[in-house]
């Protein structure tokens, strides 16, 4: 490949968005519009003629390298399986409260976090990390939640006693506290 084509290929690869033609020209100040066009042709022909899995596509305001459509399904299948979903901060906080305060009702969790917990509790329950473990006393006999064996499994704990005690935890996580001697 010509030097300009190599540069354009690297830039097109690194960019999340299509690159407008004039931005492509600016990559090499000595390039001409005709040179850029020729380099783009070179890349496109190479991708097409040598049977690459990607292609160079002109989109509305520029150029973009895209994977060929026939591979989309396989890629999506593999990536979705491989990319674990992160638990949100809110979910983790709720989980933490349940772990330390179980059995605990929804209202109490909401009281601690200051926001509604219904939807989060439900999604944690669907993931099998918390479950209803009983009912509280008093009006409405609220559902009480606790952590599940899957919770222990996920965090590689043998039992809940392996969680740090709440008082040693703040110390361990707070930055630059003077060390206890």
């Amino acid at each position, binding site marked *: 490949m010509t030097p300009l084509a190599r540069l354009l290929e690297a830039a097109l*690869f690194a960019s999340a968005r299509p690159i407008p033609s004039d931005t492509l020209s600016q990559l090499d100040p000595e390039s001409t519009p005709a040179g850029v066009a020729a380099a783009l042709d070179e890349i496109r022909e190479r991708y097409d003629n040598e049977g690459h899995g990607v292609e160079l596509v002109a989109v509305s305001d520029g150029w973009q390298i895209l994977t060929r459509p026939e591979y989309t399904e396989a890629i*999506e299948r593999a990536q979705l399986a491989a990319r674990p*979903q992160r638990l949100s901060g809110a979910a*983790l906080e709720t*989980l*933490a409260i349940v772990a330390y305060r179980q059995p605990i009702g929804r*209202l109490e969790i909401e009281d601690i976090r200051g926001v509604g917990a219904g939807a989060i509790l439900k999604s944690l329950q669907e993931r099998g990390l918390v479950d209803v473990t009983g009912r509280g006393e008093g009006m409405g006999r609220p559902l009480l939640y606790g952590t599940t064996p899957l919770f222990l499994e996920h965090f590689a*704990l043998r039992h809940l006693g392996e969680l740090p005690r709440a008082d040693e*935890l703040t110390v361990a996580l707070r930055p630059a506290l003077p060390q206890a001697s």
Partner: protein
Amino acid sequence: MHNDVAPMHARSAEDAGEHVGFIVELPEFSGPLDLLLSLIRDEQVDIYDIPIARIAEQFLARIHGMRIDDAAEYLEMAARLLRIKAQMLLPRPEGMEAWEDPRAELVRRLLEYQQVREVVDVLERLSDDRRNRFARSYVQVQAEPVDRDDRPFAATLADLFAAVDRVLRQATRPLVHDVIPRALDVDGAMRSIRAVMALRSRAKWGDIVSRDAEPWQILSVLLALLELAKSGELRIAQPKPFASMELSGDTAS
């Protein structure tokens, strides 16, 4: 091109040397050992035979002017150097073979730290190398998987601890548990059921009770339904056990 990445302490020492009056800013050295090591390098002394009086003097000169709250660890090292200096002045016991050099522990720590700096140089080189290459920029995948809850999720014990910490910081106030009594609202439920049934002749349980309904709401609806069925306003049918209840306004059939 990567050889220009000098170890941080060497660079810092150069910078410090050019300045008049020595204002040592903390980030220049990553700690007292870093500063000490750069002094030893600048003075070109043998690390195994450190002229402790000279180095201690240099050390004190360098940390002079440092903001005191940043300097605790440096001051501790300065005190240590002065203590070693004093110990060196004590006469050695005659004929005792096992004289322990007061500098031994310091030398050990310096050597160990020196090794860390060597690894840092390696890491810095690797990191610069990697930083000079771009990966594919992240493009949002628009497809949402259908069975999202079967996917693994990424959260570590540390994430959890951090979450606990956040919670604890926020919840410093004592937890006073307020139980708000909620009366059942059967009349209200009857009104909503009538409203739904006015729009359609058939409905299901789920049409009347929202999925996140609270127990008192569910109970209210249940009682209201029984009330309406008793009065003949609607019919409740359950095609099979545990199936959703079907409601119809057509009480004649």
